[in-house]
């Protein structure tokens, strides 16, 4: 009897527990997995999202002139597993909390997330490449202040190797043995 009264009073005080949703506002948890989006500034086109996508909802196609690529997510095939977000090395993939997915049949093939990303010329040799995202470059070279991040992130791998070689060459021990190397500016191992 007492238990029943407790429930009765709670219901009187707190009102019904029904979510007023189609007629009113509802709640959205912070970590709800809704629509998947990709940030075109961060995406490198490495394709790990396409590889890890369980539903095959992600496609990456190079442009016909090979000057970039198009990344497409088909929302109607995405199973919201968030593997793409987990494996994306640059953090370009994210899952928003937008769960408003119901749509009429006529919009079925419009529900895509698509970005066309163009390559940029390398600052050294001018070959087309995708520059490293700034955030990633800062993370990579966080312990090496001598490296110009803004320049390095715009270099192709070959030019980056050349830059690294130039930087290290001047601190290698001299052949005569008189002038000792004072320090190493790169993480690369040197003969010593």
């Amino acid at each position, binding site marked *: 009897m007492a238990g029943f009264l407790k429930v009765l009073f709670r219901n009187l005080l707190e009102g019904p527990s029904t979510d007023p949703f189609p007629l009113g506002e509802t709640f959205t948890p912070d970590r709800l997995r809704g629509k998947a989006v990709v940030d075109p500034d961060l995406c490198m086109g490495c394709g790990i999202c396409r590889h890890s996508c369980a*539903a095959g909802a992600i496609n990456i196609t190079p442009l016909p002139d090979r000057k970039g690529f198009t990344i497409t997510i088909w929302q*109607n095939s995405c*199973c919201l597993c968030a593997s793409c977000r987990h494996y994306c090395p640059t953090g370009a993939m994210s899952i928003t909390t937008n769960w408003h997915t119901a749509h009429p049949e006529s919009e079925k093939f419009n529900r895509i997330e698509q970005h066309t990303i163009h390559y940029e010329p390398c600052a050294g040799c001018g070959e087309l490449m995708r520059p490293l995202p700034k955030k990633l470059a800062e993370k990579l070279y966080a312990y090496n202040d001598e490296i110009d991040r803004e320049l390095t992130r715009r270099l192709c791998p070959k030019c980056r190797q050349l830059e690294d070689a130039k930087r290290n060459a001047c601190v290698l021990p001299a052949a005569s043995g008189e002038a000792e190397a004072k320090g190493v500016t790169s993480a690369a191992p040197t003969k010593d």
Partner: protein
Amino acid sequence: MSLDNMLKKLSVRSPWLFRINAGSCNGCDVELATTACIPRYDVERLGCRYCGSPRHADIVLVTGPLTTRVRDRVLRVWNEIPEPKVTVAVGICPISGGVFREGYSIEGPLDRYIPVDVNVPGCPPRPQAILEAVVLARSIWLKKLGVEE
């Protein structure tokens, strides 16, 4: 307002739902049960309720990627639902095949065989999204009946 019109308006307050499992993993079915059976989401506020017979249904909710084994049965049950009916594809499986797409036993997507009216993707969609789809389906149903514009 004539009696005929009044009856027509009054009788369309409650579209009944029917659920077809076309080879679903049961995830979406659980969400459908949640939408209807627990007081928090309570689809019966909209006048909807699940019925046991396809002959009583107005809105049909289909889950699952339409496997070869259930295809003919789904079509048979679907054809027993009287017109006008609204078909709702619940979850990514009936819409695109989802994670089972291009499987050897998958005949879907559903709209190869059945004209679908509303899609609600998700794996599974949350109960609020299903409620949204039911509201959308209800407005399409009213249009088909000629009650709304």
